[in-house]
């Protein structure tokens, strides 16, 4: 579906190492995501998912490679690229002392929306996420699932073309996780948004999703879920993951 769609996120030959680190955290990583595509970035803890996302969001400086978002280069046209993306970080980033509405108003302002435009978009997104009745509640009063929904609503306010999720369901119970994953899949279809969903939880990936398998900073597999299973000769993604974990264990033993 997405291959024929215009590319929204293009990551080309990315390599990165921390100033204090000898080993590269990312090595020759390339990912391409088209409009309306849900792309899962699957990898164990420490694979380099968060580093990749911090490079895409411009929080870290590129060392090698190229990233463009909706045609805007993250280094050369940083502001244009940032204006086209919404991000849901792994750590909660809402202000606990402010209400849902105040948090959303703040974010709308950060993205340059005027009060009138912000009011309308906030009302729309709160409605979409079933949070309209809670708009005057402080974030502190909400449970984890609702907080996450507020963060996703927030990421949509400026109508981005690309949504980035960095382990966005960590700490949530299984039903809430499932609801959020379903909701984001739905967003891809409804709003034609490209999604990069970084996770280590294989049950968050649907059969029709595109997957990039990241391990120790390298893409070790990519394609549709079924192509990946064929390549790894595994009945499910869970088994692919087990193979990766086993490889990690072997390496550790050799190193010891």
């Amino acid at each position, binding site marked *: 579906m997405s291959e024929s769609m215009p590319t929204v996120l293009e990551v080309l030959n990315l390599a990165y190492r921390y100033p204090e680190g000898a080993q590269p955290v990312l090595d020759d990583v390339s990912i391409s995501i088209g409009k309306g595509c849900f792309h899962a970035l699957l990898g164990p803890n420490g694979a380099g998912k968060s580093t990749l996302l911090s490079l895409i969001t411009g929080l870290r400086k590129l060392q090698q490679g190229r990233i463009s978002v909706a045609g805007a280069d993250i280094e050369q046209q940083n502001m244009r690229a940032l204006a086209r993306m919404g991000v849901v970080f792994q750590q909660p980033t809402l*202000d606990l002392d402010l209400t849902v509405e105040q948090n959303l108003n703040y974010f709308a302002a950060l*993205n340059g929306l005027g009060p009138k435009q912000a009011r309308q978009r906030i009302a729309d997104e709160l409605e979409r996420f079933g949070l309209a009745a809670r708009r005057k509640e402080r974030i502190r009063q909400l449970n984890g699932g609702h907080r996450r929904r507020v963060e996703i609503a927030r990421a949509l306010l400026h109508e981005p073309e690309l949504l980035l999720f960095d382990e966005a369901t960590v700490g949530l119970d299984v039903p809430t996780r499932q609801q959020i994953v379903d909701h984001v899949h739905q967003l891809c279809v409804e709003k034609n948004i490209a999604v990069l969903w970084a996770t280590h939880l294989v049950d968050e990936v649907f059969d029709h999703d595109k997957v990039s398998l990241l391990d120790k900073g390298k893409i070790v597999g990519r394609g549709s879920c079924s192509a990946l299973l064929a390549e790894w000769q595994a009945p499910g993604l869970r088994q692919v993951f087990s193979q990766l974990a086993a490889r990690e264990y072997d390496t550790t033993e050799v190193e010891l």
Partner: protein
Amino acid sequence: MSSGSRYWNLFRGVVIRETLRFIQQRERFLAALVRPLMWLFVFAAGFRAALGVSIIEPYETYISYEVYILPGLVAMVQLFNGMQSSLSMIVDRELGSMRVLMVAPIPRWFILFSKLLAGAVVSVFQVYLFLAIAWLFDINLPVMGYIAVVPALILSGVMLGALGMMLSSAIKQLENFAGIMNFVIFPMFFLSSALYPIWKIGEASPLLALLCKLNPFTYAVEFIRFSLYLKYDQLSVGVVVICSCMFFLFAVQRFQRT
């Protein structure tokens, strides 16, 4: 949308957020008032009899110690507010909410500048509340001074906020904050003209007087003091502006991507 209105909307959003946070954090609101009021009504009242302040600029007549100490306490309100802002930046960074600010499609220097100015605006609210209480207790200033002091309050608020921002960019862990704050706030406040005129400190120790003269906080106090009496002290203005720029540029440089 024009880029001017984008910048304005961001600035507006940051100011509203900082103001809301301040109003909703009642303990912070209370502490911001109680601290200088204690100094004014307990410390200054006790010292009134012991300390006489002769006529020095900008005053045209003998003044009570409470009147002398008032500009210093105004600057103290701003100093604590600047440090509080830096603490909230460290907390924001540790909790991750700073990232939301850092991925906004506006240049980073402008985001930090907005935060700085927002903090200064909040400190001006606090100062006026403090001055209003002082006025109720008959510690009066020239009426026009209450208006003339606004630019001084904004600039000194920016300078002390920029100092806090610079410190927050250098402090990596929240646990280190309290120690460093004690190391910054108390020497800055005591080694300044906030509590005593520098000539008086010089009588006791020329070295202490020199340290006071090297302290940027002294110039924030004097800028406020002169402005309250509708006078202009070029040196104070110059030092406050230069220090604001230096602290801010340092903070911006530290907040750049790595």
